Structures are given as structure tokens and as C-alpha cells.
């Protein structure tokens, strides 16, 4: 940016000084641990203490030996797809209303209202759903109060409860990204389309959705990735039915203490997630131009 080679070098040193701390931290906290986990996934036992250990791929083959793991992985991926789809389908119209139908100060206030629960403690929110959904809980009493026949509403410990809890937790991500993307669409584009005679479904399909797609995909990714690895919500809301790939991995680390297996299973999950992200990235790249 300035004259002379020596100046450019000083600039580079300054850039390094500013960047080094953050990236060193990330290296120690994330990249090195991931490498360590890769190492762990190919050994037989944790190399601490005096236990004998050697290299093996048994942890990975274990995934293929028993159909349980693959089944649970599929279950988690399907859960991810369900929750993501619901979040997008419910959240997109909400973002549309916020971005295009509401004007002025109330728009910012409402947007804030929508985002705020997102920043409360996720664990606590799941817990609050448990209270609402259980037998003789709030929902039960509420339905019985308005429905003439006595009915037993106990949604707890079911996949429905898990889905409700997850959608509730992650829908603000979609609303946020969709809102930002929709807000960037110039109103005059839509007015131009209307002046050319387009009906609302054409405008939606041909103009709004293509322009908002990068934002939607970003939101979908922000939902899908955590959901696929979730274990806390399935455990609390799903009980015995709440066994998913994430809970199995959790078990390896806190109950069974088979860390190598847990590491291998984690990497398989990571591979699946990265493949899905790679498929979505071309669309995301376009949004950055």
C-alpha cells in the first residue's frame, strides 16, 4: 500500500502481529484437537498411562460391522433434514412478513423480539418445553380446557417432542439469514415484475427465491450441522426413544470411555457433514460476489 519494498514488509509484520493471537488460539483449541482426534480414531486404546496400544482401523470397521451405527447415523441425518425443512418452511414466510410487510420502527422491534429467545440458554429452553409437553403439563391442561372430551396429551419422550424442541431452538437462525437476504432485495425489482404483469407465485419463484437462496442455504446449514450432532435435546425430550448418533458418541466419552471409537464415529459424522456442506457451497459462494 505504500512505496518501497521495506514498507510492504513492515505492513506484513503488522498484519501478522494482529492476526497471530487469534489464529494461534484457534489452532490450539480447534485444529490441533481435531488432529488429535484423528490420531485417536486409529488407535486401540487411549495412550495415557501404561495401557498397551497400537494402530488399528477397527474403530472405523466397527461402524460397518454392526448395522446399529449406520442406522443411527441415518436417523440423525433424517432428523436434521426434518428439522431443517420445517425451519425453512415456517421461517421463510415469517422473514418475508418482517422484511417486506412491516415498516419503520416496529420492524426493528419485532425483529429483535424474534431473535431474542435465540440468545437465551438452549438447555433451559429445552427444559421449558419439557414442562409444556409432558403429561399433565401445560399443553395437556390447555387442550383439556378447550376440548369437550377428556384427552391425554403427552408428547414427551417422542420424536415429535424432539423435533418441536429443535425447531424452536434453531428457527431464529433461518429467520435471521432469510431476513437479511430478503431485505437486500430492492423493492423496485418486485414492482418492475408486477408492472410486467407477473402474479405473486411467479414473482416468488422466479425473482425472490433465487435472490434469497444464498441466505436460505446459509440458514439451513446453520440449522442442519448442529442438529445432526445433537444429543442434549434427544436425551431430555426423547428419553428412551432419544437414541441418536450424537448420543452414542456422547456415551463413548462420558459413560463407556471408549474414546477411540467415539473419535472414529465423530470423524465419520464430520465426513458426512462436510460432504453435504461441499454440495451447498457453490450456492453460498455466489452470495459473496
Amino acid at each position, binding site marked *: *500500500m*505504500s*512505496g*518501497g519494498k*521495506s*514498507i*510492504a514488509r*513492515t505492513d506484513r509484520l503488522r498484519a501478522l502481529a494482529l492476526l497471530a493471537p487469534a489464529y494461534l488460539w484457534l489452532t490450539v483449541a480447534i485444529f490441533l484437537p481435531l488432529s488429535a482426534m484423528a490420531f485417536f480414531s486409529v488407535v486401540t486404546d487411549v495412550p495415557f498411562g501404561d495401557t498397551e496400544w497400537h494402530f488399528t482401523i477397527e474403530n472405523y470397521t466397527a461402524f460397518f460391522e454392526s448395522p446399529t451405527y449406520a442406522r443411527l447415523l441415518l436417523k440423525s441425518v433424517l432428523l436434521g433434514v426434518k428439522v431443517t425443512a420445517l425451519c425453512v418452511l415456517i421461517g421463510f414466510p415469517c422473514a418475508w412478513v418482517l422484511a417486506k410487510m412491516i415498516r419503520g420502527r416496529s420492524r426493528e422491534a419485532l425483529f429483535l423480539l424474534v431473535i431474542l429467545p435465540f440468545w437465551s440458554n438452549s438447555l433451559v429452553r429445552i427444559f421449558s418445553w419439557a414442562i409444556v409437553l409432558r403429561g399433565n403439563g401445560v399443553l395437556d391442561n390447555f387442550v383439556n380446557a378447550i376440548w369437550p372430551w377428556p384427552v391425554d396429551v403427552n408428547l414427551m419422550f417422542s420424536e415429535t417432542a424432539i423435533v418441536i424442541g429443535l425447531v424452536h431452538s434453531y428457527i431464529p437462525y433461518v429467520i435471521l439469514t432469510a431476513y437479511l437476504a430478503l431485505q437486500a432485495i430492492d423493492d423496485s425489482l418486485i414492482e418492475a415484475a408486477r408492472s410486467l404483469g407477473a402474479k405473486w407465485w411467479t414473482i416468488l419463484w422466479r425473482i425472490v427465491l433465487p435472490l434469497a437462496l444464498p441466505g436460505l442455504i446459509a440458514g439451513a446449514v446453520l440449522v442442519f450441522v448442529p442438529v445432526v450432532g445433537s444429543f442434549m435435546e434427544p436425551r431430555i425430550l426423547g428419553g428412551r426413544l432419544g437414541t441418536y448418533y450424537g448420543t452414542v458418541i456422547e456415551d463413548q466419552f462420558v459413560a463407556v470411555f471408549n474414546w477411540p471409537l467415539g473419535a472414529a464415529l465423530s470423524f465419520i459424522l464430520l465426513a458426512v457433514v462436510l460432504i453435504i456442506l461441499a454440495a451447498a457451497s457453490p450456492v453460498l459462494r455466489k452470495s459473496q460476489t
Partner: protein
Amino acid sequence: MSEVRVEGLIKAYGPVRALDDVTLTFPDGGFFGLLGPSGSGKTTLLRAMAGFVEPDMGQVFFGDRPVGDVPVEAREIGMVFQNYALFPNMTVSDNVAFGLRVRGIAAGETAKRVADVLDLVQLGPLGARKPHELSGGQRQRVAMARAIVTRPRVLLLDEPLSALDKALRVDMQIELKRIQREVGITTVFVTHDQEEALTLSDRIGILRDGRLIREGTPQEVYSDPGDVFTARFLGEANVLEGTPAGAFLDLPGGARVARPDGAIRIAVRPEHVAVSVDRPDGPNILRAELRQRIFAGAMGTCVMDWEGQVFKAVARHEDFAALPESGPVWVSWSERHARGLTAD
């Protein structure tokens, strides 16, 4: 204050040369205008002199000293940006004092110099205001004050008036010239407005595609443009091309006109063209078709058609009073107003 010189400057962005071997001297204490269309490299040249752009080849000299290794903050320049770049969180006085404080000048002296320069730009009582409370013209003057209070060696102005509306711009041009005369700093300013360049500059340089194609005083460059591009860029010109015939030029349509400088292409400025219904005397005459008369207040323009090209004449409106709205006319000029041109 010193003379500033650039030698052989080359700057390329990929295959495009923003600066293509530019050599130029900016005289000490003078007001030099860099003029050219967008993309001509004039802003790149200015920023290379400031130090924001590192040339691939060539040198910049302040006085006798090459400044290639000197970073921007050590070059002792004063710069006015197109958007003024006033620090929004500081008052006018603090903005102007910034450069002095950086140099460690004592508080008492700083206050005095700030007050003096604000008086110079006629903003004396506005020291406590914030930039967003000022008008465009006032902000421009604060930017000037801030740049000159540090007594820099050279003052660099990047299209300083282009953000102002027309009437204000004309007033500010006069102001700018007055301030520069009083302070006497070597000043280089960049503009795409040829009228502004002609008004303000002691000397002008015309840039095109990264090359310096013409340099001189405004009068020199205007009356003797040298090539078709400069002739058209700096004011308007009627360009006539023909085949040589001794001391004359044979033009399409049978006319034969005087041929200055031995050129096959000549230019005549519209203000030097006379239009009449009756055939005038002299060799430099053409038969043309008057298409349109434009009224622009003090002046008027006749737009004519000659051999398929547009021919313009400009004069005071009353000088065209005798002409019809359209129809066949004669155009004529004096030989001393025709200039030979090279090709683009």
C-alpha cells in the same frame, strides 16, 4: 515547499497499465492541474505521489530526494480527498489540529495556527462544530485548512470540488485559487472537468490511458492542442480532414482551405467560426446546412451539417440574430485560428 518530480512512472494492474511511463515536473509553488477522462491514470498518479500506490517502476522526487522508500505518514504531504474524509468524531478545530498534534507541536502554537488557518478559509467561528453539522462547501474548506496547516511540501487535491453543485463549485474555484496564492504551496490537483482545470491551473497536464499526451499552460494547450483527442477533450473543436494540395487542403465536397503546419487534419474552435447567409470572402469557407440553433442564455450555438459531420459555431446570441432557424449557410474562419492536428 519544493518542486515535485516524477520520472518514468509505470504501474500496472494485471495487463492494464494505469501509468505508462509518466515523466512530469510540478513547479515549486505552482498550481498544476491533471486532467483526463476516467481511467486515464490521473488519480493513480496523484496517489503514487502521496504514497498510497507503489509504482512498479520509476521514481517520485520531492525536491532532490527520492521518496520511494518513505511511507505516506512521513512524506509531509497535505491531501484533500474527494469526499473530504473529515473525522466524524472530532470537531472542526480538532480535525484541523490533528496533523499538528501528530507532529508534537505545543498546544498554544497549535491553537494559534488552527485559528489562523480557519480565518484564511473564512470559517473562523465554526471551530466547535462537528462535520455533520456543516454544508458541503464548508466541509471542503475544513479539508483544505486541515491539509495546509501543517505546511506540507506539496498539496495533493483529488477532485476536491466534484461533490459540490455547479454554483458552489464556481465560487469554491475562486476560493481555492486565492488560498493557494496566499500560501504558495506546490499544488497538484486532479479533475475530469476541463473548465475547472483551465480556470485554476498555472500549468496543465492531459493524461490518457496512463500516458501524458500534452503539457503546458492552459492557453498553450487550449489554442494548440496538438492531437484530435486533446482538441476534443479541452473544449470543442471542428475537425476537418482532407488531402494535401500544396499550401492548401482539399476537403470533401470541393472546398479548398488554407493548410497550417503542413497538416492533413485541422481543427477550428466553434468560437472562431462565423456563420452567414451571404457568401463571405477568403479561402476558408464552407457550404453547410444549418440544422439547429441552441439558446443558452448569454451564448448561442449553431449546429450545422457539413458533408455528413457535425459542425458547430458558438457566439454571443445577438451575433446570430440575422440567421434563419435552418437552411443553407456559409461558415468561415480566419487562417490564424486553424490548427494542425496529429491523429489520436
